[in-house]
């Protein structure tokens, strides 16, 4: 049991990193193995200080790399403890191999990812290239748009991942610096409320159960591997109602309501912007202003649960708009943006098939302004009026130099 009581106010001024670290403390994380990297360092650093100062009964394991950090997390989780860590960018990339081990072994580790661009060129600011790198890793991926959400979703992450019908690792994403280093009002739960919500860790197949020794990390070749991966994929798909249930329970104690897809002013929207992370809040302000100032019926669809991808909810949210701009904050590397592709696939299965275009924006932390968002809405309005995509299908928003874009709509 912790020796010291951490004093909390009803309202605190925390940045996203501090908020996430408080959630780690309140969830009584047993083991955190971590390697520091900007901008996520304060999350693990703070947890270490909570342990050292007696606020939490846990173990902070210093390791030599992020690969080792996630490996130690896998070991601790397989042993039967509540386990979490944090990383960003290059550290996330170095973890990538072990991310697949964690999900394949169905270990409910919580990873706070403070989104940051991937080098080269080196950059410490926020974009979503590290988050995208994890999108096939079999983890649940939740996205926070501000510090409060980074705190709330971190608590939800334990409850979702550790649910015995899920048993999958969960990432909680927040945007580097914009969320992680911006102090905002955060309304924390009391330690008692938070821990009661998360609940005691109930191990499954734990290696410290000496009455039932188990093998982790078995080899499966072509005769077994496929079945195991299919079972894992089904578990990830089936986590959707559990995420919904945990969000409902969280609303009951906090008053804050989360959904896997968050729609803003979509009831009568003619055009929409689909986004992730802090961009969502900018786009909401832009949509509101455009409605008031220019009469454009703009709405915003934000993805809270990037994985499992809410294919059906995205479709439901967007099927009645005329034109959709999908924003990708990751260099697409020779393709359309990955998020654009996923949203487009969902929309292709609707009867009306809205027009869809792709905006690459905000790489390496390039500011995405309200005016940038408005321009996207205005172009969607032009598409809606024309009945076809009037611009290049993939464009770059906020880029210096000659206009850059790829592919045009095929019209007979």
């Amino acid at each position: 049991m912790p020796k010291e009581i951490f004093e909390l106010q009803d309202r605190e001024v925390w940045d996203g990193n501090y908020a996430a670290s408080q959630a780690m403390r309140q969830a009584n994380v047993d083991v955190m193995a971590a390697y520091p990297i900007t901008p996520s360092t304060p999350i693990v650093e703070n947890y270490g200080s909570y342990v050292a100062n007696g606020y939490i009964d846990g173990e902070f394991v210093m390791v030599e790399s992020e690969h080792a950090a996630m490996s130690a997390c896998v070991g601790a989780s397989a042993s039967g403890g509540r386990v979490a860590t944090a990383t960003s960018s290059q550290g996330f990339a170095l973890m990538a191999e072990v991310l697949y081990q964690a999900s394949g072994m169905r270990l409910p580790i919580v990873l706070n990812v403070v989104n940051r661009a991937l080098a080269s060129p080196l950059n410490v600011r926020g974009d979503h290239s590290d988050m995208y790198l994890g999108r096939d890793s079999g983890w649940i991926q939740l996205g926070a748009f501000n510090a409060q959400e980074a705190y709330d979703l971190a608590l939800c992450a334990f409850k979702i991942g550790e649910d015995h019908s899920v048993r999958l690792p969960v990432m909680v994403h927040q945007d580097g610096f914009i969320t992680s280093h911006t102090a905002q009002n955060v309304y924390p739960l009391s330690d008692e409320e938070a821990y009661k919500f998360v609940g005691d860790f109930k191990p499954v197949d734990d290696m410290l159960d000496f009455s039932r020794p188990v093998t982790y990390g078995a080899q499966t070749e072509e005769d077994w591997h496929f079945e195991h991966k299919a079972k894992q994929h089904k578990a990830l798909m089936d986590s959707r109602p559990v995420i919904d249930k945990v969000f409902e329970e969280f609303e009951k104690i906090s008053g804050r309501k989360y959904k896997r897809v968050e729609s803003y002013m979509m009831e009568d929207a003619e055009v929409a912007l689909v986004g992730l992370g802090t961009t969502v809040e900018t786009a909401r302000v832009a949509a509101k202003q455009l409605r008031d100032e220019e009469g454009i019926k703009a709405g915003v669809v934000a993805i809270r649960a990037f994985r499992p991808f809410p294919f059906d909810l995205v479709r439901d949210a967007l099927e009645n708009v005329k034109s959709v701009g999908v924003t990708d904050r990751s260099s697409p590397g020779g393709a359309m943006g990955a998020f654009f592709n996923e949203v487009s696939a969902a929309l292709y299965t609707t009867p009306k098939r809205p027009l869809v275009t792709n905006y690459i924006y905000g790489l390496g932390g390039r500011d995405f302004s309200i005016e940038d968002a408005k321009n996207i809405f205005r172009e969607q309005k032009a598409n809606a009026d024309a009945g076809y995509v009037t611009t290049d299908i993939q464009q770059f928003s906020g880029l210096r130099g000659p206009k850059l874009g790829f592919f045009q709509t095929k019209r007979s």
Partner: protein
Amino acid sequence: MQDIKLKATEKRGLHELEAGKDLLGWDEVTQGSILPSFEGDASNIAHLKQEERDYSHYNSYTATVASWRVVKPVFNMDVCIDCQNCWVWCPDTSIISRDKQMLGIDYDHCKGCEVCVEVCPTNPKSLLMFNEHEDIENALSQWPEKKKKEKK
């Protein structure tokens, strides 16, 4: 001459590892491909000998890899000094020893790597490699004589 099924329970080496039967569907495989080693409560397992343990069908004890082997070690009890070197070095726990007395080879799990022969210190060796199809009795009858020290 050792029994080919020395100390084996009825479960040892039941199935071939690469066998195409008993393949389960995605809904039947274990979560996270995590495999329990024993049936029932195994709290006391460290104090039980192999033949006393209730291994689960996931445990490699119940599988055999004998078909991979092309040469096999044969154990000659008459030369052995029970030093346990082979037992220590065998990478597949295929040396069967009880109360520090070497008894023979687990031919369901031995892969024929020859490490036991390499580390055997006796003269002549107490373990020698023979063709997989060589009869054990026949192999023992061909055992070499003690080598004399070469003069320098």
